[in-house]
């Protein structure tokens, strides 16, 4: 296998995992802060 196959696989894993972590953290934060704001407004 070409060296670039290994490099691409490693970068794909790192970017997907980091992107997934950030997306999950962002959505859970927005959801929780949204719920807190909604409750405050009532």
């Amino acid at each position, binding site marked *: 296998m070409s060296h670039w196959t*290994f*490099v691409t696989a490693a970068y794909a894993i*790192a970017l997907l*995992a980091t992107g997934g972590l950030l997306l999950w*953290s962002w959505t859970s*934060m927005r959801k929780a802060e949204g719920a807190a704001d909604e409750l405050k407004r009532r």
Partner: protein
Amino acid sequence: MHRFANPARFLKIARPATAWLLLVGLALTAFALVSGLTLTPADYLQGETVRIMYVHVPAAWLGMAGWAGIAAASVSQLVWRHPLAAIAGRAFAPAGATFAAVCLLTGSIWGRPTWGTWWEWDGRLTSMLILFFLYLGYIALAGAEKERGGEGRIAALFGLIGAINLPIIHYSVLWWRTLHQGQSISLSGSTIDSSILWPLLVSAIGFTCLFAAAVLMRMRAELAQAKVEARLRRAATE
């Protein structure tokens, strides 16, 4: 650190810090990875696979930094009962576990063309795998303790005991010389040529900013959830 014991004061700083860390982290990481793929030369021994270093090494640092954060939060919780300590510990865990997993996977991918094997029960690899399992244990324990309304002291003790693994990971390449290379970067300098070293430093800063942003976002989510639960409890008693 006690200045931030007040969640309102913490949030005042955390809100703008999250956005800045995300922006700076994304810009630096993108710049470092593109530079690492296009501007730096291939290594004379490892060829193009040396470029895996730009994602593997920051992931290894952050996998360990995550547990160092858990250990610091554990001390803060057990000694000073800092109100944000348990939240910080629970926020560090998923970020640290993610980067420990990235370190193991990218290391395995790097190992195949350079060592001729995907995995070896070498001191560094095994202690890193143990760190990943410690993260899973901590996430389960801290989650269960939170669900039962506990203060998180058992998880804090687990966080402190687990920190014993950090010096083992660090010194494993000196204690057991097997496949994994020795330390390339230390406080006194680096054995890596500067032509391929600089994107690594930029990448490490970039990924660290993204890691910090993820931790802050998890802390903000936990604080907001706690606020909702407190309001609902208050409403139920009125």
